[in-house]
């Protein structure tokens, strides 16, 4: 839990997600370094950068899997890891974190499906036990989501019986079932065989085109990032080196480090 020596400002009025001077350290290792970033409602932000630069950590702080060491994260006008107390911010309690998490969904690199549950139960588990939905209602909605990701015929299967691409599509349906305002994708296709990448990107593309959901997408798929992102942020050593519209970042990056990274990635890919 971050100490709140930080002077709080009010939430940025136009941003849905805002990192205000957020630092994350593991011991002496600075993973996020006074990070600043605002994400507008409905905006799709692609985060690119070398491995170990802190991209996953950014998402993990936002998903409340790890607390920041310092700074304030705002989500939908509320401090994520703090409670307002008069003019100050104090560390949040579990109840606050639980409420804030309602707004956020995450898709993991390694899927992290519940292996002992069927596909349908993976998707209905949270609606039933978190939202208190009736089983029949939750299942009806889960079927719709699974249809959207093209898996209506796998409802009774267990994750172990599915391909990686199918598992990741269930992972997306599971996250969407709680109707989050922000979806976090942490390299959703990195663990997949090349031939399965397309089906997962297809689902994410469809979601992006539907419009109003806000997305933070960490990815190495540069073409895809360019296609769906409103903005691309290049990340290095816990800082955003450069951010801007995809055409700008991919065709005329201002920073030398961005150029080098893109050159290396494009040559490798």
């Amino acid at each position, binding site marked *: 839990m971050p100490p709140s020596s930080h002077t709080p400002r009010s939430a940025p009025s136009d941003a849905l997600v805002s990192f205000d001077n957020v630092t994350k350290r593991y011991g002496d290792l600075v993973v996020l370094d006074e990070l600043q970033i605002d994400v507008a409602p409905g905006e799709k932000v692609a985060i690119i950068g070398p491995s170990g630069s802190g991209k996953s950590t950014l998402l993990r702080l936002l*998903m*409340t*899997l790890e607390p920041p060491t310092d700074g304030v994260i705002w989500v939908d006008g509320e401090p994520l890891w703090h409670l307002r107390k008069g003019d100050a911010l104090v560390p949040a309690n579990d109840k606050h974190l*639980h409420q804030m*998490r*309602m707004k*956020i*969904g*995450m898709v*993991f690199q*390694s899927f*992290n*499906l*519940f*292996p*002992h549950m069927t596909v349908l139960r993976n998707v209905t*588990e*949270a609606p039933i*036990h*978190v939202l208190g939905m009736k089983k029949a209602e939750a299942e009806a909605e889960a079927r719709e989501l699974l249809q959207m990701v093209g898996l209506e015929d796998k409802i009774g299967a267990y994750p172990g019986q599915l391909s990686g691409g199918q598992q990741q599509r269930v992972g997306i349906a*599971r*996250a969407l*079932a*709680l109707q989050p305002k922000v979806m976090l994708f942490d390299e959703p296709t990195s663990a997949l065989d090349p031939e399965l990448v397309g089906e997962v990107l297809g689902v994410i593309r469809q979601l992006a085109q539907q419009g109003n959901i806000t997305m933070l997408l960490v990815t190495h798929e540069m073409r895809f990032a360019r296609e769906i992102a409103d903005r691309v942020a290049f990340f290095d050593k816990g800082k955003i080196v450069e951010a801007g519209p995809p055409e700008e970042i991919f065709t005329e990056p201002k920073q030398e480090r961005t150029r080098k990274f893109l050159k290396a990635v494009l040559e490798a890919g």
Partner: protein
Amino acid sequence: MTHAQVLAQTTAPPGGTVWDWGFALEILPELLRALVVTVQATVVASVLALSLGLALALLRRSKTVAIRLPVAGFIEFIRSTPLLVHLFFLFYALPRLGITLGAFTAGVIGLGVHYATYTSEVYRAGIEGVAKGQWEAATAVNLSPRRTWTGVILPQAIPAVLPSLGNYIVAMFKETPLLFAITVIEVLGAARIIGTQSFRYLEAFTLVGLLFFLVSYPSVLLLRRLEARLATK
């Protein structure tokens, strides 16, 4: 008659032969009745060992040091001291503190608590074997801590350690004769009483060994099959 022949005659069992089938059949019902006590003690103590063990494993993970440390201390103490001492303490010492337990109750508590400290370690291994990503996914879909345990973690942790838990139950079953030391007439105790009354220990103790084997061995085979099935899953 040689000296040896005289000796053989006086020490030979009544009935002449060494192993007496008639006597064995005669005492079998009594031994079976006592085996029921043994099995009852095992079943009740198992329920205690399996449930208390889980509770201890969960408490040992508590965020509160004031819970975690005493629980860890208790587990280490029980594991480092003989079961027979626990049994004597429960049956002979507790009454001095105003708590009088029947022999069977004291025996079952002693066995159950002792084995709970072993099963708690088994549960702990099972819980630690659940992938970190499962906790993260549970948080990401906003499950409560309680639902995370009951819906996600334990349903994966427990099946994985069922064979180990089963092995401890079998081990406990084989330790029930210790209860005779606090006057519970379980199967070994019954055999010993038969022996002292008839001066025929051979049939009684042989049958006890057979009876234990007939219960233990199929259980062990079953557990091996369970283990193999879990391994292929």
